């Protein structure tokens, strides 16, 4: 569908979601579905940006705290909180967002390259920005978000390290290699 004819390929379809009052867009081709954020089981020992796992019709799927992943303050669960289930290169994961507003079609020409950092989001995760009349939509590169890029994981671990003392709850984030021996043999 998306890469069919010329007319269509010049057009983007985005799922527009909110994080901290900012609108972001994800390529609809990678979005499987959108569900309510309930029943998340935390995973001890997983990276801090992993909120936990959910049961999606019998499949156990990791859920990512999108805000944290993008370098924003962690999300606060509310009425509108949703999980966007995406499939990127065969990996299925859920992304927690503050709300999903719409599905939008827009011409590819309206997308500009992203500046170094928009709204505090690390540019590494961005595909570009779209200006639509008065609105600014930040296009998120899902592949990057899900990529277990070593460098990013390292940054994660560093970040987790710094906020561990003051965030006892959310700081299970010792990264994949950090944890077990440390606790196990104490």
């Amino acid at each position, binding site marked *: 569908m998306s890469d069919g004819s010329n007319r269509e390929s010049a057009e983007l379809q985005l799922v527009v979601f909110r994080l901290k009052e900012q609108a972001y867009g994800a390529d609809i081709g990678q979005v499987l579905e959108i569900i309510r954020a309930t029943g998340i089981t935390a995973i*001890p*020992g*997983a990276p801090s940006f992993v909120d936990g796992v959910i049961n999606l019709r*019998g499949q*156990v799927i990791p859920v990512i705290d999108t805000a944290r992943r993008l370098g924003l303050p962690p999300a606060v669960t509310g009425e509108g909180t949703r999980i966007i289930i995406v499939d990127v290169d065969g990996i299925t994961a859920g992304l927690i967002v503050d709300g999903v507003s719409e599905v939008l079609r827009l011409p590819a020409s309206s997308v500009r390259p992203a500046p170094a950092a928009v709204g505090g989001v690390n540019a590494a995760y961005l595909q570009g920005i779209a200006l639509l009349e008065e609105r600014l939509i930040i296009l998120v590169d899902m592949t990057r978000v899900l990529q277990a890029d070593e460098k990013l994981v390292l940054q994660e671990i560093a970040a987790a390290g710094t906020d561990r003392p003051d965030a006892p709850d959310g700081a*299970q984030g010792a990264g*994949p290699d950090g944890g077990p021996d440390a*606790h*196990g*043999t104490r």
Partner: protein
Amino acid sequence: MFTDEEVAVFMEELEEKLQVINDNVLVLEREGESPAVIQEIFRAAHTIKGSSAVMGYEKMSALTHEIENLFDRLRQGTMQVSGQLVDTLFDALDTLKLLKDEITGQAADVDVAGVVARIRACQLSCDAPPAGAAGAAGGGASPAQADAGGAARVPGGDELQRLLAAGLEAAGHAGGGGEGASADGAGVRERGGMPATAGDGGIFTGTGAAGMAADGRAGLSGSVDPVRTPGTGPDAGTTGASAGTRPAGEAGDNRVTGTPPAAEAGRNASAPGAAPPYRTSLPLEEAAEAVVREAEVRGYQAYWLDIGIDRGCQMKSVRAFLIFETLQQIGEIIKSAPPAEELQEGRYGPGFTVLLITKEDPGQVHDLVYSIAEVSSVEVRPVQPGAAPANGRPAAAAAAVGGRAAAKTAPAAAPAANGGVKTVRVDVQKLDTLMNLVGELVIDRTRLDRFVDIFEGKYGSDDLADNIVEISNHLGQVTNDLQEEIMKARMLPVATVFNRLPRMVRDLAHKMGKEIDFVIEGRETELDRNVIEVIGDPLIHLLRNAVDHGIEPPEERLRLGKPRAGRVLLKAAYVESHIVITLSDDGKGMEPARIRQKAVEKGLLTPEQAARAGDREILDLIFTPGFSTARQVSDISGRGVGMDIVRSQIEQINGSVEFTTAPGKGATFTIKLPLTLAIIRALMVALGEQVYAFPLANVVETLALKTEEIRRVRRAEAIVVRGRVLPLVRLTRLFREKGREEGRLSVVILGSAEKKVGVVVDRLIGEQEIVIKSLGGYLGQVPGLSGATILGDGRVALIVDARGIVKETGVEETVYEVNRAM
């Protein structure tokens, strides 16, 4: 060229037949000659010869040809089974396996000349040459001479030829016919044993069905994740898919008119070389009719055979070829529909029909054809003798056939479907998906249960409520059955592993100069395919140990008053929801004293520890890494890498291994395995709001504990359970969860290998069967966890990596330190 799929099918069959040869040669060695065994090997070799020739693997075909010859001689009794012969056969088998590897590219330039020469030498050394078939062929005289020459004991092989010749009024060609006959005399002769061993004819389809079941099984042992579909066992009573599904008109046509292609078929059918030259001027139907009539006079019976071929059959041409070959061993094929050429090129529908004359009874014919792989149905219908005047009869018969076919086409689908497909291949992934969906159903049912409670609470117990309860119960039952069936679909018989072992034991025994009586029981026991993949290595290791260390040399055994041959019994059986594999030997067993001494020598225990430890503890030391009591390190076992790996491999799949031994009497190892890896029993515990699952295989016991009972060893905590000090781990700290830390604590004692660790949890919930789910590729390995499962309420619970925790926890130092302090 053949497609990958065709090659795969060929390989599968090859594997199966090699296994048949292997098993039977072992029987031959153990029990001496028996016509049935020789026949089995002969037929397997024959099949390989046929299909490898079709596939163009000439070396394989040549080698199996030699094996076939050898067994032909054995069958006639012109040769005896000897040790040399068995060794040669095993050589040949190994070479065949190499040739198989050559096809897959795992081996190259396999030389068969050597082993072929050995087989021939074997034949030469074993007998005086009998009157050869060659002589008869050379004579080129009458069929009678062919008879005298080589085929005296064949039930009617040459007589048949004569009959064919006569029936076709081919007297003028007597010379040529005779030649054909005599040439075939040799061919037929090799088939002589067939009727004797084709089963005792019993019930029409009984053995055939069994044979087919065996085929299905064997097919499963292939490499392509095949799966047996439950309940598709061959329905012996069902009629041929061929007749059922082919349009009646077409079927009738072929038979009634006997078109020129059918004449061709007739000729091809009686190949190789034996075909008496048909007179082209003679209409086929008359010829065929004459043959049939003549045959009846001479005590032969003519049958129509409707043969259905598996829908999934990949090499129809090969199947047709094999069926023709097989049938020609017991009689002659007069014609076929579609014509033989088309059959041999694989151009036919779900089956075909042949007209066979033979002296065999219909049951044997049926069984014989049915035993060919991928034959899904066989119907043998006699051509009624003397029912109609010569010319009318085939038409009548054909009409009858046509009528039947037509009759079948109407109610068709059911029997056709029944008889047509016995197995399907399903990607295991698909089964997993099915499993997931069933899991969903289970969850919904649990929710429905809850709804029922609410409903009852609200409206009391009335008809509506009762209905809902009934629906809920029924749904539950169906869901359980569904789950069970899908589980079963993932199962394979343990024979897929066991079958490799006898040969290994034999070779090992030869090498070590020991005599072993190796007995296998319970081959048919079924296990999840994942489990099967894992148990091979540990079993091989245990067996090697039994043969190498356990069983004494024959002389020593005699001195000890034991039979010369050591007995090794491998047995698989279901015990509750587990499968238990036991391996016992009547060898020398294990002496705790020697192990104790060895453990001290190796520094595994201090002399004091060794003195204090009980015999059981000492015996269990054999599972310690680096421990081996073998005085001499051989290339078979005794490298000291054995038992600990055996144990860890078995524990990896949530199994356990234990053993008992009595010095001088032998040892018995008991391996307990889950039926499946997908579902385990687990102990559910609560930690804060989260639920965690401990695999029950690793849970030794649970106990309640007061905080005061916790001892401190340096910075670590420990508890004392029945005099033994165990390190204590708090799950809250391990997982950085909030939970209770004080008051009465629940402790789960985990054990893996010889280590034990106590784990503090908030609350014990209870035992439950859980379906194991992976955490997925994104998270990969998360320390402390081995997976996840879905609870009845739809929430995800995490499965604790109990083995990992036990392993990671610094047991040794702590324990020994405390033990010393006590």
